[in-house]
């Protein structure tokens, strides 16, 4: 149950999504990925894509215009 952080601050679409995709491939089932982003498109397209892949996902706004997306790898 390892935990990884992915710094996607100041990055625009589709970089956060591609970075998450790449990182998830290297992770094991049950591992947690925390993606930091300040791009509001990411809380739509990353979250939608992760759901479609069948992983658990949620996000919180940690400060104005900045979010952490939590992804738990399921398969």
């Amino acid at each position, binding site marked *: 149950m390892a935990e990884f952080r992915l710094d996607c601050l*100041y*990055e625009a679409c589709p*970089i956060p999504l*591609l970075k998450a995709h*790449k990182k998830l491939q290297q992770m094991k089932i049950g591992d947690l990925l925390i993606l930091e982003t300040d791009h*509001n*498109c990411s809380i739509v397209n990353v979250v939608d894509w992760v759901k479609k892949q069948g992983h658990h996902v949620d996000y919180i706004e940690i400060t*104005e*215009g900045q979010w952490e997306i939590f992804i738990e790898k399921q398969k």
Partner: protein
Amino acid sequence: MKIYNKIFKNPWTYRTGAVLLATFNILLFYTTGRMWRVTNGIVSIGAFILEKIGLEPSKWYYFTTYRNIDIKTSESFLANPYILLNLAIILGALISVLLASEFKWKKIKSKKQLGFALLGGVMMGYGTRLSFGCNIGGYFSAIPSFSLHGWVFAFFMLVGAWVGSKILVRYLL
């Protein structure tokens, strides 16, 4: 609070966005007789700046041929109404981000990001002049006008996006 979140905070669906864009484009066309275009205003600002530093863009082939689409030859480049529309878009975006309280200054992450962004900007700017518009003027506004150039634009936009994503994955990830 619930309604506030729904309208200002949570992202709208693609369907909502599409319906609103279509409605406003129709309204714009109905009230002003013009289609929505973006880079057309930006190129006028560029030409105005070049004029101020002593160049004569109004004599360049592009402007002698296509300037009259939006502004009369006697008018200043700043008379282009799309400049106002672009400023309104930026102002609207600012209002919406402030209403959502998501305003944030963004930094440049790395020299690589800066370099690719500048290179991309120059390529997009040049490309829009060859195709008479960006994905708004050349595509979004072209398709509902039943213009063939929108479909040509769409095809090459797909090709460009495919090549661009390969470059992105190879060099930027």
